[in-house]
């Protein structure tokens, strides 16, 4: 494969700098010894990291976000995998309409979804509950779960499945032993992207979260409306550290490119 030229590398450097700058500056400010947002010009301090301990709701919100992301992505896949298999393999009337419906949460502004969900869950008596939050997140992450599973299912060699059928596999056995392992890379990628979506959603979640079910973005958002101090930066820095560690581990043991491109072979 050919190398990148100097022009490409300059572009790349600027690109990466701009991508990283806002995050880096947040991380730097987290180490300030001052009481206001500023760069740590006179010495680093862990003061604002220690302050997190005084705000257990941030830690709680982190766990809520983590659990919510993991669970809603998983539930979304339970619905998305059979739907993706049907859409990938059968040509039936209404197929395109169904696919459009399932991808529609991508097109609807999250503010609109937030308002709609708020009213709906209030009227069915679920407002402020964790259940409502999970259901709403299942909907918004569904397109990501569906899309990557669909890509895997579409690219799958159906004769492998036929071979399994001819050998006597059928129904659930066929799915569990052959189909699922074959589309697993896509399913895992779908889960990962769905999780990212859920973990980072603020616009819709802000309508549904109640004290106790606030996610981290909501908690941070509410906090900076009242106080602008380096606490948010230290919380962010923690999340960034955790995220990066998770991504690096993922890359080490599975391969980031495999997760993100939804490809690869499980038979390693």
């Amino acid at each position, binding site marked *: 494969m050919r190398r990148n030229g100097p022009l490409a590398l300059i572009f790349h450097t600027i690109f990466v700098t701009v991508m990283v700058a806002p995050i880096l500056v*947040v991380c730097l400010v987290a180490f300030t010894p001052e009481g206001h947002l500023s760069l740590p010009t006179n010495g680093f301090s862990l003061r604002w990291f220690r302050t997190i301990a005084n705000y257990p709701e941030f830690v709680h919100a982190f766990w809520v976000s983590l659990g919510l992301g993991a669970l809603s992505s998983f539930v979304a896949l339970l619905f998305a995998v059979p739907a993706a298999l*049907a859409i990938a393999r059968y040509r039936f009337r209404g197929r395109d309409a169904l696919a459009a419906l399932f991808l529609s949460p991508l097109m609807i502004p999250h503010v609109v979804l937030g*308002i709609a969900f708020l009213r709906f869950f209030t009227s069915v008596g679920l407002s402020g509950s964790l259940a409502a939050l999970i259901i709403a997140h299942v909907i918004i992450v569904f397109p990501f779960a569906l899309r990557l599973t669909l890509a895997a299912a579409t690219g799958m060699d159906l004769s492998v499945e036929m071979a399994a059928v001819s050998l006597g596999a059928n129904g659930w056995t066929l799915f569990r032993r052959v189909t699922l392992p074959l589309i697993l890379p896509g399913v895992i990628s779908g889960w990962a992207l769905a999780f990212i979506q859920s973990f980072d959603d603020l616009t819709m979640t802000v309508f549904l979260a109640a004290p106790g079910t606030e996610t981290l973005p909501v908690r941070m958002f509410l906090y900076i409306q009242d106080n602008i101090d380096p606490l*948010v930066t230290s919380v962010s820095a923690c999340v960034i550290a955790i995220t990066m560690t998770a991504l690096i581990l993922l890359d080490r043991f599975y391969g980031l490119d495999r997760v993100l491109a939804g490809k690869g072979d499980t038979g390693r």
Partner: protein
Amino acid sequence: MSAVADTAPQAAAKERGARAPWAMTAPALMLFVGVLLIPLAMTVLLSFHDWGQYKGIEPVFILKNWHEIATDPYYAEMFWRTFRIAILTTLLTAVLGAPEAYILNRMSGRWKSFFLLVILGPLLISVVARTLGWALLFGGNNGLVNKLLMSLGVIRAPIPFMFTETGMVVALAHVMMPFMVLSVWAALQRLDPQIENAAMSLGAGPVTIVRRIVMPQIMPGCCRARSSCSRCRPAPLPRPRSSAAAGSRSRRRSPMTSSSTR
């Protein structure tokens, strides 16, 4: 994605039972009808109801709200601005993200992994934190970039960034960029590198290769990313508490109180 080609006889291999696809999509369909279509329909219905400061929502059928949207130029301007920002964001994302994905794809394994991590990492970092970062860089006189440029004498007054459309487009593009890079990069992954070599052997220069060979093949990836971009997510900027709840009209013209970074 709708053009899933029939794979010759194999696709028909599943012709047994025409009800199967419906059985397989039924759970998802029920989920979507139950908790997406019904809530959206309720919201549409709500738009025909009346609302007053003291009486709350009144379940009557009126067209007042729709009439207001259609006639008040404020809304027209708002829709237009949203549309404009979405377009600009998408353009900016595509113009910068696609080349970056291409460059990324040509890096060797270790660097590729590293920069993929750097570019995709922000996906997991809350928009709140990222937006705060922009505020720290460009916010008023104290923004780092502004301070730096002013001390170097490049500019006299701080670059207007916060609460401007430029700022919004840049921040939104920053949010969407990983998706664009990811989509294009995934499309590039599926390319056969030999095709590029073949084009080169036929005498095509680098520009021609990109324009005639690579671009046509990755356009679907770009389009896929664009559909996620066009959903314009407001990046939350720190401002008075009002913006979370659906703002009532009286608040909308309140000056955008600049939250200083002190």
